[in-house]
């Protein structure tokens, strides 16, 4: 059978009415749990996976796919409306999305996220079906030196999230980099900056920091504004649906986000967070609306959300073709496969084609279901903003702490939540951007470890870092991304950049 036959067969199974019902239940449950502030997709999937036990394999898979996509989309809903991302990949969504929501454009922000997720999900799933064997070869070309080059590119791109002041952005980034150094150094087992506190040996959890800085910091900041009149949030201003110009500005971003997200997600050390950072930087550079970034640019929601979803499909490439789980969610998915006595691995496409194609078809169905469920619900989600603040923020903080307590109910973890919450408040107050702190915490250790791995393999020879075409190519792109804007600005031709951006693709 050809790929298309398999896919059609999978779809035939997946369009059974019972199966569609499972998909609907999965998407609903996933959205319902994922939408709670501070609870990210990985936790959502882990919590809801047992619900799928006891169903037949087809039903279980499709419900799982629904939960997965529902959880991801639910997470971006609260990031946009309440500025409370529960995981690293929706941090950049919150950057522009929350600005849009505050300006009464929450509807279009949620819509572009939903449709972008759908477009990216469908395209990336098709790419998974047809290109997986080729993409996976690319993934294996990537070793420590190539990842290091990618991290350099990500660092350069992150400056897009710095806001108005480079000094404040760099300060935030370095605070994140410093926090990242706490705990055991993964490469040597050496404890750093733990000062004898055993709970610090594992370092600072990204989710704890993100929830503290965003949700707790936000609650403190909103509470402390005297009068609060100037910070009035508009639930709705203009339509809930996307306008013609929103569509026009979004579709390229969806495609760019997908093109970035899928391959990055497919790399064993890539991941949705890196994909969303890279996409955000790309959008700022190429959207032609760079001046709107930081104030609520729809491209800044559309691109990263598409990238995030495409990367999620991308992580299935190494899982299904090589049996490598590369993210927490993929590891949970692996556990799901094991229910059926299957070990995903290089032979899975051969030994269990029904299941693989069933999964791929399920992902497509779940994507459709997500759109069907969530577009009509957008009006309802926006009503969240009309809940009186005492109840709204009391609920946000309860859920924000729930995630931390559920994973690690130690006083040290909760104390960190409080301390970083206060830090997040102070940084907001003095105009320091929050996102680079979390970005530094994520990228810092990756860059450090990949650099030291590359140097260890080459026995200390630094030329290894640009010794392959891929690594050298990425470094050149990073250098250009850094230098070209500076040169153009020095020549007083800043508008040329916007021009180039506009003509691109």
């Amino acid at each position: 059978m050809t790929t298309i036959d398999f896919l059609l067969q999978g779809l035939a199974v997946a369009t059974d009415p019972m199966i569609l019902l499972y998909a609907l239940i999965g998407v609903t449950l996933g959205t319902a749990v994922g939408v709670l502030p501070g609870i990210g997709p990985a936790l959502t999937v882990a919590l809801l996976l047992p619900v799928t036990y006891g169903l037949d394999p087809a039903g279980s898979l499709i419900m799982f796919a629904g939960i997965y996509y529902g959880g991801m989309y639910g997470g971006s809903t609260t990031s946009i409306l309440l500025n409370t991302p529960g995981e690293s990949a929706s941090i950049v969504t919150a950057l522009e999305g929350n600005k849009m929501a505050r300006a009464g454009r929450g509807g279009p922000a949620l819509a572009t996220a939903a449709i972008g997720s759908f477009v990216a999900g469908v395209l990336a799933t098709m790419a998974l079906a047809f290109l997986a064997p080729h993409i996976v070869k690319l993934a294996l070309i990537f070793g420590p030196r190539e990842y290091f080059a990618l991290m350099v590119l990500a660092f350069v791109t992150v400056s897009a999230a710095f806001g108005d002041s480079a000094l404040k952005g760099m300060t935030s980034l370095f605070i994140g980099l410093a926090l990242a150094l706490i705990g055991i150094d993964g490469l040597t087992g050496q404890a750093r900056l733990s000062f004898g506190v055993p709970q610090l040996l594992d370092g600072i959890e990204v989710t704890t920091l993100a929830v503290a800085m965003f949700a707790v910091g936000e609650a403190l900041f909103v509470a402390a504004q005297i009068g609060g009149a100037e910070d009035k949030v508009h639930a709705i201003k203009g339509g809930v649906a996307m306008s013609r110009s929103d569509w026009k500005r979004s579709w390229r971003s969806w495609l760019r986000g997908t093109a970035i997200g899928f391959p990055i997600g497919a790399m064993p050390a890539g991941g949705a967070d890196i994909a969303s950072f890279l996409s955000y930087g790309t959008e700022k550079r190429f959207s032609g609306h760079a001046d709107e970034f930081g104030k609520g640019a729809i491209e800044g929601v559309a691109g990263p959300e598409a990238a995030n979803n495409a990367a999620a499909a991308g992580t299935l490439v190494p899982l299904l073709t090589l049996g490598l789980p590369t993210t927490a969610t993929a590891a949970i998915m692996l556990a799901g496969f094991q229910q059926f006595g299957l070990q995903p691995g290089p032979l899975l496409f051969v030994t269990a084609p029904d299941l693989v194609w069933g999964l791929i078809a399920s992902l497509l169905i779940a994507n459709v279901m997500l759109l069907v469920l969530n577009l009509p619900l957008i009006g309802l989600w926006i009503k969240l903003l009309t809940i009186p603040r005492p109840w709204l923020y009391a609920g946000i903080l309860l859920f924000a702490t729930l995630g931390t307590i559920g994973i690690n109910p130690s006083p040290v973890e909760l104390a960190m939540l409080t301390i970083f919450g206060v830090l997040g408040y102070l940084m907001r107050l003095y105009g320091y951007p929050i996102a680079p702190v979390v970005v530094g915490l994520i990228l810092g250790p990756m860059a450090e470890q990949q650099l030291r791995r590359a140097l260890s393999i080459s026995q200390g020879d630094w030329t290894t870092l640009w010794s392959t075409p891929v690594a050298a190519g990425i470094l050149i792109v990073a250098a250009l991304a850094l230098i070209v804007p500076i040169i153009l600005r020095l020549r007083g031709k800043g508008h040329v950049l916007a021009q180039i951006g506009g003509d691109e693709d």
Partner: protein
Amino acid sequence: MKHTLLSAVFAAAFALPALAGDYVIMAPAAPGGGWDSTARSMQEVLQAEGISGSVQVQNVPGAGGTVGLAQFAAGTAGDPTQLIVGGYVMVGAILTNDSPVSLADVTPIARLTGEAVGIAVSASSPIQTIGELVEMMKADPGSVSWAGGSAGGVDHITVGLLAKAAGVDPTKINYVAFAGGGEALAAILGNQVTVGISGVGEFLPQVQAGTMRMLAVSTAEKWQGTDAPTLMEAGYDVNVQNWRMVAAAPGLSAEQKAAVAADIDAMVNSAGWKAMLDTKGWANTYLAGAEFEAQLAKEIEATTAVLKDIGLVK
């Protein structure tokens, strides 16, 4: 479907009140990992087989299990309902993290499961046997880069033991630690490193698919699913197993200890546990009583020595 959900809700909401023979099992790791799934499997089997009326699992993650171990040792003395799962990784972590609490501060009951450590190369690698690999290490230890799990973990310790047994300076091994199994496998498959070392289970699917070649396994006997020689057979005196165990609270009386050991024994010999091992793909390496205690003491001694040799412990 609705039915399943509802019944799950009801079953949970009207859970039976506490019975005698209750246990609280601490998994000193975050939900989802190996220790956590061991604890939850024990919970399931102990309840399903009627050995215990109610079993709860408590997660206390951190620092290779030493955070949980310290809390367990301090808070449970003399309480026979408290159990903790742990493993070989903990032995190393106690030493490298300079933990104030060790396995001597709890009451080890039994080793439950175990897995061999495998040494494997990509199928396209020129290295055919473990002997060739060791010769390369002898000639230039830095030229052999090892991809494995966290520094000071069982993979790292095995490389150190192999180097020592082969007469190579253990401080000179070029060990490259990877966080997740996925990334390490990709590095081995992509020939980014010379050789990989990890739990046999991670390599077997690749070996069966012909993308990797297993050079040796670390246990005393051959491992099911591969005909690779053991390190002993290849002439290196190394016998390592990445095991998981269960321990009870400190300060138990001999009768209390025997009662816990009898419950664990009943669990291990139940059909439910055997089925559980099959689904999870775990090998039964059950060892209890004085034999286990002797084996544990021996392994702690060997691990301490090799960690000193590698330079991770002073």
